[in-house]
């Protein structure tokens, strides 16, 4: 193991990790928004839009991110739609993630008991209030475990971005292997980078999960 080599190129990995995290952050944020919107449309059976949301979810869940990215990055420019690699990455990631988040929110909504809704209606809440004060808080605490799992999943999916020429962690590692033939050093740094990003995050999210589940209806009696 050539530690001097590692020290010399560590900066590249830090930079790449920054790019990965930046793109993942926007991708995950947009995924959450898309997912919440879609799941609300479906939950309230909004005409036409709930259909569109369902079709979108099936399309996005049953196709690989790599193909989605290739279509956005190499296909669309041919009909005049030019999107930068970074924008492609964020669009692709949120296109994929939106459906996963929607499914997580949906299972949360379904877990809110019917009696809860009826109680809310009987004290005269409007539909918006019902959503804001009764449905979302309870649904959210049920969805949290799978939402956080999705976030980690999406963060890992960013490793594909190198395929559309973004200088992410994979890209740097491949570059170093190709240029200097320092396979072990490059791969070790690659694995270390992902561990440094993902390990603390998964521990943090597990902690958040425990905290938020506390709000769940019936939590106190279950323990």
């Amino acid at each position, binding site marked *: 193991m050539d530690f001097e080599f590692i020290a010399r190129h560590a900066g590249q990995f830090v930079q790449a990790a920054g790019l990965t995290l930046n793109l993942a952050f926007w991708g995950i944020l947009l995924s959450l928004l898309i997912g919440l919107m879609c799941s609300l449309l479906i939950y309230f059976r909004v005409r036409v839009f709930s259909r569109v949301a369902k079709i979108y979810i099936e399309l996005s869940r*049953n*196709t*690989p991110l790599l193909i989605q990215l*290739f279509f956005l990055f190499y*296909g669309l420019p041919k009909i005049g739609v030019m999107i930068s690699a970074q924008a492609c990455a964020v669009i692709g990631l949120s296109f994929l993630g939106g459906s996963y988040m929607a499914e997580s929110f949906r299972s949360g909504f379904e877990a809110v008991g019917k009696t809860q809704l009826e109680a809310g209606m009987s004290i005269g809440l409007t539909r918006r209030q019902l959503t804001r004060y009764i449905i979302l808080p309870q649904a959210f605490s049920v969805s949290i475990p799978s939402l956080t799992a999705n976030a980690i999943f999406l963060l890992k999916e960013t*490793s*594909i971005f190198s395929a559309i020429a973004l200088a992410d962690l994979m890209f740097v590692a491949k570059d170093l292997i190709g240029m200097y033939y320092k*396979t072990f050093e490059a791969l070790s740094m690659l694995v270390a980078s*992902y561990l440094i990003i993902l*390990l603390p995050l998964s521990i943090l999210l597990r902690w958040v999960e425990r905290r938020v589940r506390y709000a769940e209806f019936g939590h106190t009696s279950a323990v």
Partner: protein
Amino acid sequence: MQSSGIQVLFEGANLSRLLGGLWVTLQIALISIAISAVLGVLFGIVMTSKSRVVRAVCRIYLEAVRIIPILVWLFIFYFGVTKALNIHLSGMFVSVLVFSLWGTAEMGDIVRGAVQSLPLHQREAGRAIGLTELQVYRYIIIPQAVRRLLPAAINLATRMIKTTSLVVIIGVVEVVKVGQQIIESNILNFPTASLWVYGLIFLLYFIICYPISLFSKRLETRWQS
């Protein structure tokens, strides 16, 4: 003529070549799914072991597979292991190996969840009527656990099929690679080829995965009642 780029798909043997590439992808997926199904069940049962050490070792394996992206695992085996052992492994072999390792871990976790969700008295009742440990699994645990794990296992299968699209990055000539070849060789006649080729591949994946996930959803709703 470049008015209708979609024609590139029907030019010469392009369509059959793409489908041939898809078959390579599917082969990798099917072999890995078969291996994962068998090893995953065994791994899942091992994970329910009483021994703390065994459980910890299983847990480390599962978490290690989970926390590192699959693409990184493909790189580790394709570039790292081959260099360390000074051997040559084909991209195809590495793909099947990595997908099986991943599938076994995930499948094992699904099996573990299903087995542990069965009430303890089922196992005890089996023992009480004098079944051997093997018979308890054969007649009591497995039939009941299968119902609980099948929807999740089918979901895993679609995830694996989708993820096989990554193998193009370690040089396996599958559907995406064939698509790239077609795009490049038709760049003069059909400048818009990439739109249609990637569009078609997108659709092909959907056509394969959608029925499977529909099936899993149906099983889930049917068995819930």
